[in-house]
């Protein structure tokens, strides 16, 4: 997914705190609902992907260090909802994560966030460093 030429309609940065993140999630969902064409199922998908991405950025990326910032951008239209979340951590390699659906790991408590993001969103890309994700949900026009 190319991010060149994207016109983010909202951009902000905030210290690593889940309260800030939850406020931004609520704002983003309100914007989706205001457009009225997004289904509840799609709004749920965006909510879950944002929740998991912010948790990854704040707790895994920035290690909950309030001196480190989370950078957020969004673009919400009737056709697509697109988000960018970047932390100030060292990054990670998504391909190196164990598959939590593998029977060997199914009982392990953690490691499901990235799988949920990929499954609930239409397109998901991490940057080379692995500290930023761009993800988009394309609206299903047949609903």
């Amino acid at each position, binding site marked *: 997914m190319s991010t060149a030429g994207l016109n983010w309609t909202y951009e902000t940065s905030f210290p690593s705190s889940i309260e800030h993140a939850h406020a931004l999630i609520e704002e983003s969902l309100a914007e989706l609902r205001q457009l009225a064409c997004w289904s509840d199922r799609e709004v749920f998908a965006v909510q879950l992907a944002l929740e998991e991405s912010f948790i990854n950025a704040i707790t895994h990326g920035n290690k909950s260090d309030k001196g480190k910032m989370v950078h957020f951008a969004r673009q919400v239209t009737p056709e697509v909802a697109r988000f960018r979340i970047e932390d100030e951590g060292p990054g990670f390699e998504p391909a190196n994560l164990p598959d*939590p659906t593998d029977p060997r790991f199914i009982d392990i*408590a953690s490691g499901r966030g990235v799988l949920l993001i990929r499954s609930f969103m239409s397109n998901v890309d991490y940057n080379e460093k692995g500290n930023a994700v761009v993800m988009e949900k394309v609206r299903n026009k047949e609903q």
Partner: protein
Amino acid sequence: MSTQRIDVKKVADITIAVCRDMKLNDDLVIQEWGDQLLALLDDKSCRKVLINFERVLFMSSSALRAIITLNKKAKDVAALLILCGIDDNIMEAFRITRLDTVFTIKKTEDDGIRSFTVAGDAK
């Protein structure tokens, strides 16, 4: 002092924990909720546990983690654990992560209660 996150009732020898929160995505809420569910298993008379999610409309992977931890403790103490009332969207998250193969999940509380009567129904 922690907030009450579950309502607990008994039907015969089945302990039913009804989740009170609509959203399970806050660390403190999940911690309290998970702790209260785990504490149920400290009672040796509580070996059939039904968790009712009918009020829950959103849960993060952190909440899934808490249920997995609960499942491990249930296995350790030989308790039967069944989940019910899971919203369709959340159920999709269970399917994607294949946790639907780890847990016994029933549509309604009544279905859950009935399934305890079938020997070995719970995973």
